[in-house]
C-alpha cells in the first residue's frame, strides 16, 4: 500500500466523526432554515389573525420544499455591469461563514464538530462576523445604488452592534471564566443557575445586538424594502438569493445558539441541580408524544386524503422520537444515550424559544430610522455594556477578595447597572428633545 493511501486511511479513521457531522451540518441546516421560515410565516399569520401557507401539504408543511424548488429553477440573472467574480463569490462567503461557525457550537453534550477547540465561543463570533463581507461585497459588486447603500448601512450597523454584542458576551465570559463551550455550560451547572439571572443586563444587550447583527426587523435597515427595494440583495435572484437567505437564517441559529450556551444554560434542563425535579427528564418524551397526538387529532380534519396520510406520517415520526427518548430513560442498556439526547432536546428547545422572541419582536415593532439605530447603538448599548462589564467584574472581586455573598454582590451591581442605564436614557431623552426643539425652530417651511 502506498504511503499516501495509508495516510488518507489513517486520517479518515481519526476524523470520520467530524467529517460526518460536518456533512450533516451542510446538508441539514438548509432544511432547518426552510422550516424556520415556515414557522415564521405561520407565526406572522397567527399574530395577524390569518392562516398563512395552507395549500402545499397539510398546514403548509411542504411549503419550504416547494419554495426551494422554485428558487432552484428560477432564472439566474447577473447584471451586465456587475463585477462577475465578486458577484458570484459574495453569497457563498455569506453562507460559508455561517455554516463554518456552526462547527464549533455544541448542540448538546454529544453533538459538536470541533471537539476540543479552546477558543470555542470566540471562534463562533469571529467566523460568523465574516459573513459581513458577503453583504458588503455583494452590494458593491451589483453596481447598483440601492445595493451599495444597503451594503454601507449594513457595514455601519454591524460594526457598531458587534461591539455591543462582544462587550455583553464578555460579561458572561467573566462569570464563566473560560472560552470553551463545554466549560461554559459546566460553569453554569456548577453555579446552579443560568447566567441570564446573574447578568440580566448583558443578556438584554446581547438580545438587541444580535437582532441588529442578523439584520432582522426592527433593525433591518440594510434591506428596508420601502426605501431600498431589497438593499444589498436587490440584484440577486434564484439560487444566489437563496444562498443569502440561508446565510441569514443560519446566522440567526448561530446567535441563538451562542445566547443559549452563554446565558440560558446550554443543554442543561431547568434547575439542573435540584434533585426532586428529576422528573423533568420525562418532559422531552411527553412533549414529542403530545405533538404527535395533536398531529393525529388534526389528521382526521384534513380536506384531502393525501394530506390525512401525510399528517399521520408526521404523527408517527413524533411518536417514534418520543419512544426513543423514553427508551433512553427506562431501558437500562440504552441509558448511556440519555445525556446526549436529552441535552440536545433542551438545547434545541431553548434555541427555538430565542428564535421565537426574534420573530415576535419582528411582528411587533416598527422599523427604526437609521440615525435612531445608530443612536441606540452608540449612545445607549455600548456605554451600558461597558458599565455592565465593569460592575460584573466588581461583583466577582467582592466575592473572591472580600468574601461577600455572590447573590448579594450581583444584585447590588445589577442595581448600579440599571441606574447607569436610567442615566443614559435620561441623557438620550434630553439630547433628542434638544435636537427636535432646534429642528422645529429652524425648519419652519411647512408653517405657511
Amino acid at each position, binding site marked *: 500500500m502506498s*504511503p*499516501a493511501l495509508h*495516510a488518507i486511511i489513517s*486520517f479518515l479513521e481519526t476524523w470520520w466523526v467530524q467529517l460526518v457531522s460536518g456533512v450533516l451540518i451542510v446538508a441539514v441546516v438548509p432544511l432547518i432554515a426552510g422550516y424556520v421560515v415556515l414557522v415564521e410565516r405561520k407565526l406572522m399569520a397567527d399574530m395577524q389573525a390569518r392562516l398563512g401557507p395552507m395549500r402545499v401539504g397539510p398546514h403548509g408543511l411542504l411549503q419550504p420544499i416547494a419554495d426551494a424548488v422554485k428558487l432552484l429553477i428560477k432564472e439566474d440573472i447577473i447584471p451586465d455591469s456587475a*463585477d462577475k467574480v*465578486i458577484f458570484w*463569490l459574495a453569497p457563498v462567503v455569506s453562507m460559508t461563514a455561517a455554516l463554518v461557525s456552526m462547527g464549533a457550537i455544541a448542540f448538546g453534550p454529544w453533538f459538536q464538530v470541533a471537539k476540543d*477547540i*479552546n*477558543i470555542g465561543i*470566540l*471562534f463562533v*463570533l*469571529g*467566523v460568523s*462576523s*465574516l459573513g*459581513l*463581507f458577503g453583504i*458588503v*461585497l455583494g452590494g*458593491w459588486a451589483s453596481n447598483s445604488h440601492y445595493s*451599495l447603500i444597503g*451594503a*454601507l448601512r449594513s*457595514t*455601519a450597523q*454591524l*460594526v457598531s452592534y*458587534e461591539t455591543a454584542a462582544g462587550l455583553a458576551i464578555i460579561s458572561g465570559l467573566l462569570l464563566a471564566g473560560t*472560552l*470553551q463551550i463545554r466549560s461554559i455550560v459546566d460553569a453554569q451547572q456548577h453555579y446552579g443557575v443560568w447566567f441570564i439571572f446573574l447578568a440580566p443586563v448583558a443578556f438584554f444587550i446581547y438580545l438587541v445586538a444580535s437582532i441588529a447583527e442578523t439584520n432582522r426587523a426592527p433593525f433591518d435597515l440594510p434591506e428596508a424594502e420601502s426605501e431600498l427595494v431589497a438593499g444589498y440583495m436587490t440584484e440577486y435572484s434564484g439560487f444566489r438569493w437563496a444562498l443569502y437567505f440561508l446565510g441569514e437564517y443560519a446566522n440567526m441559529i448561530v446567535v441563538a445558539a451562542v445566547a443559549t450556551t452563554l446565558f440560558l444554560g446550554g443543554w442543561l434542563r431547568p434547575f439542573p441541580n435540584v434533585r426532586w425535579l428529576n422528573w423533568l427528564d420525562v418532559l422531552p418524551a411527553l412533549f414529542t408524544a403530545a405533538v404527535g397526538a395533536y398531529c393525529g387529532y388534526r389528521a382526521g380534519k384534513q380536506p384531502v386524503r393525501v394530506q390525512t396520510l401525510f399528517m399521520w406520517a408526521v404523527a408517527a415520526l413524533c411518536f417514534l422520537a418520543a419512544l426513543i427518548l423514553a427508551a433512553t430513560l427506562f431501558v437500562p442498556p440504552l441509558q448511556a444515550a440519555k445525556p446526549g439526547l436529552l441535552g440536545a432536546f433542551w438545547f434545541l428547545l431553548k434555541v427555538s424559544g430565542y428564535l421565537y422572541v426574534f420573530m415576535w419582536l419582528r411582528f411587533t415593532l416598527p422599523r427604526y430610522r437609521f440615525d435612531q439605530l445608530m443612536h441606540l447603538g452608540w449612545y445607549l448599548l455600548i456605554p451600558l455594556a461597558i458599565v455592565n462589564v465593569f460592575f460584573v467584574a466588581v461583583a466577582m472581586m467582592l466575592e473572591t477578595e472580600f468574601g461577600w455573598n455572590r447573590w448579594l454582590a450581583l444584585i447590588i451591581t445589577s442595581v448600579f447597572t440599571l441606574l447607569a442605564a436610567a442615566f443614559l436614557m435620561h441623557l438620550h431623552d434630553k439630547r433628542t428633545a434638544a435636537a427636535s426643539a432646534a429642528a422645529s425652530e429652524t425648519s419652519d417651511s411647512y408653517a405657511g
Partner: protein
Amino acid sequence: MLDSIIFYFFAGVAILSAALMVTRRNAIHSAVFLITTLLATAGIFLQLRAEFLFIAQIILYVGGIMVLFVFVIMLVRLDVPLHHITFRFQKWVALFVAVALACEVSVMFWYVRQLPSAGLLTPPAPADKLPPNSEQFAKVLFGDYLLPFEIASILLLVAMIGAVVMAKKRT
C-alpha cells in the same frame, strides 16, 4: 505528511494572494486578496496550535480592520486610476524597502541554520499536553508585559480621542 500538506496549502494561498493583492488594479479586488492572505496566515497560526492568535487575527484584522478598508474603498471614486497616484522617489524607496526585507529574511535563514536543534527554536510539545492557549497568552500579556500593554492602550486611546476631535464639526 498531512501536516506538511496543510502547511504548504496555507502558505501557497498566502503567498499567491499576497502577490495578486499587489498586482490587481481594482482596489476592491486587492482588498479581497488581502483578506485571503490574512485568512491563510490565520490558518498557519491554527496549525501551530496558537488558537488565540488565530482568532485574534480573524476578529481584529479580517473582521475589523479589513471591513473598514472595504468600507472606505467603496466610498472613494474608483475610476481614478490608482497606478497614477505615485510620488517622486517611489521607485527608489520601493527598491530600498525590498532590499532591506530580503536582507532580513536571509539573516533569519542563516541564524536558524546555526541553531543546534535542526532549525527549530524550541522542540515541539506534544499537541495534547499544551496548556490552554488563551490563558497562557493572558498571563504573559497582563503579567510580564503589563506596562508595554498599558502604554499601547493609552496610545490608542489618545489616537481615538484625537480622531474624534478632528472629525467633530466646530459649531
